[in-house]
């Protein structure tokens, strides 16, 4: 499987052999044993060293808890690649929430840092600000809309 972690893509291969499973990570072979403890909970043994870790899959996303840290990895598939390309486009909602103010309209000139709209979630207001000077090309949200990350709310020319 190909796991995406930040900018890195790591190739992890599991091969079933007569003597058990063999794992390579970017070509490096590792000797370890994994046992399932319960749903989402596992142990990993390497020689005497044993540790509990936690791991669940949600679609293409792998959530991993390892030595006190949470990692969110994506399994690289066509779907996930498409989602990646999508990022970095227009201005998206920073989190799911409700639009409580729209401060700009198409054609407005904005300066870097200006508030474009305000999204409320979990009782906190969060401003979506202009990342650069520019002119508003389109506004796709109205006050009261429930919005989610990944949805472009404002496009700048």
């Amino acid at each position, binding site marked *: 499987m190909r796991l995406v972690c930040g900018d890195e893509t790591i190739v992890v291969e599991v091969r079933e052999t007569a003597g058990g499973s063999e794992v390579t990570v970017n070509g490096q072979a590792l000797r*370890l044993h*994994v*046992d*399932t403890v*319960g749903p*989402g909970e596992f142990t990993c*043994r390497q020689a005497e060293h044993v540790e509990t870790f936690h791991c669940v899959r949600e679609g293409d996303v792998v959530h*991993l808890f390892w030595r006190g840290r*949470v990692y969110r990895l994506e399994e690289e598939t066509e779907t996930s690649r498409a989602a990646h390309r999508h990022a970095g486009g227009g201005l998206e909602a920073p989190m799911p929430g409700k639009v409580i103010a729209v401060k700009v309209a198409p054609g407005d000139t904005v300066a870097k840092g200006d508030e474009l709209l305000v999204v409320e979630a*979990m009782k906190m207001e969060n401003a979506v600000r202009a990342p650069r000077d520019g002119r508003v090309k389109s506004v796709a949200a109205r006050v009261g809309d429930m919005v989610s990350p990944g949805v472009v709310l404002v496009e700048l020319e």
Partner: protein
Amino acid sequence: MPAFQKVLIANRGEIAVRVARTCRAMGIATAAVYSEADAHALHARVADEAVPIGPAEAARSYLSIDALLAAARRVGADAVHPGYGFLSQNGDFADAVAGAGLAFIGPPGDVHRRMGDKKGARRLMAAAGVPVVPGYDGDDQADATLAREAARIGWPVMIKPSRGGGGKGMRAVRAEKEFLPALAAARREARSAFGDDAIVLERLLERPRHVEVQVLADASGQAVHLFERECSIQRRHQKVVEETPSPALGGDQRRALCAAGVAAARAASYVNAGTVEFLLDPSGEFYFLEMNTRLQVEHPVTECVTGLDLVRLQIEVASGVPLGLTQDAITTRGHALECRLSAEDPWNADLPSPGRILHLAPPEGPGIRWDGGIATGSDVTVHYDPLLAKLVTWGASRDESVARMAEALRRTVVLGVVTNLERLQAIVDHPAFRRGLLHTGFLDEHLTGLPRVPCPPPEALAAAALALSGTPEITGGPTPGRPSPSDPWQTLGAWRLG
């Protein structure tokens, strides 16, 4: 005979779960309430009954006095516990509950109004000789008046909703030109959270500590304190880490602070459990900030060191029993620390991070307490506060409780939503925190950015791949034609993968 027959818990999340536990231990039946978004929430499962009270939007459910009273009537409750947040400090709610012939587990309406109006509270405290922060607490709420007063007080200035608490709607303004937009935002948040947008202005003290005194009073005017808590670790005016005793206070200072807390409670004609918040200046001066007329989020640290159950005491006072507790009988032992685990993304401006809890494994062990509002499978929605759980540790000394917390945070497993776990770890591990050198700007000074999580080490990736790709060695598989979500063979067992 128990104090009440049935308590309606007019709240959600961890505090509703926690209140239900004490009720159960006291032999009191409980009824939960839930909005449409919370039909599957943990708090609606741990009570004996659960009543739907409306749509997800808080204003039409957890903030609806009518819906809550209707629920109380429907289940035949004889008392209402408001928790914290929502209507807990709303005098009209307290009055409406009393008017319906039920006991309100908290102060009566006039006490809420007296202290909930920060303007009036400031004036009352000043009159009672309790020091207050220089500021503006006038009734003239025109934007122009507030702007003028802010300039008079001198920058930086703190904008505070006159109602409410928990840091919501608060804004620090460092320059005149930021004032009006901040005021508008503060008013909107205050209106949404508390239904009232009156504002108080105060000078922003430099590097103060937040210390607060837990008080408890009965209807006959008996009042005691349960010592202080320090809550200086804050982010956006929301407390993140709290502890008791405060590492900043010597014996005399502690006595003076706690005495001021009791004096404040007396001046307020306070009844039931409450908290008097102060700012502690680096010089050692302390100033009254506000009084919270309800149980605090961070009340468990006080419970850990005093051995008292604050919800039980609240219920007893509300049932009319005189306070059996004298000041001398209240002592503390050791040190307790609380970390608030929230669905907030510390790598993305602490933005809320809703989602489903796919896997939950709270830390366990001696000296560790987990007050949680979630279970595996819970949905964390955008509608409510992002607090997931409070992790509390106790130790014979501050060093011990902090070490225990550091260790417990490394065993706190929440998968599915991004949480502030790594920030909590960074705080508790920070040398300045270890030395107790705290102030309300601690996070801005020491922990603005959190390093990005690196890629997992190769063995972790290998282990994850094995965990996810393995096929079970010992399994019967589900019985064909009978999909069984609870078949242990589907979910358990010794899947040997390596």
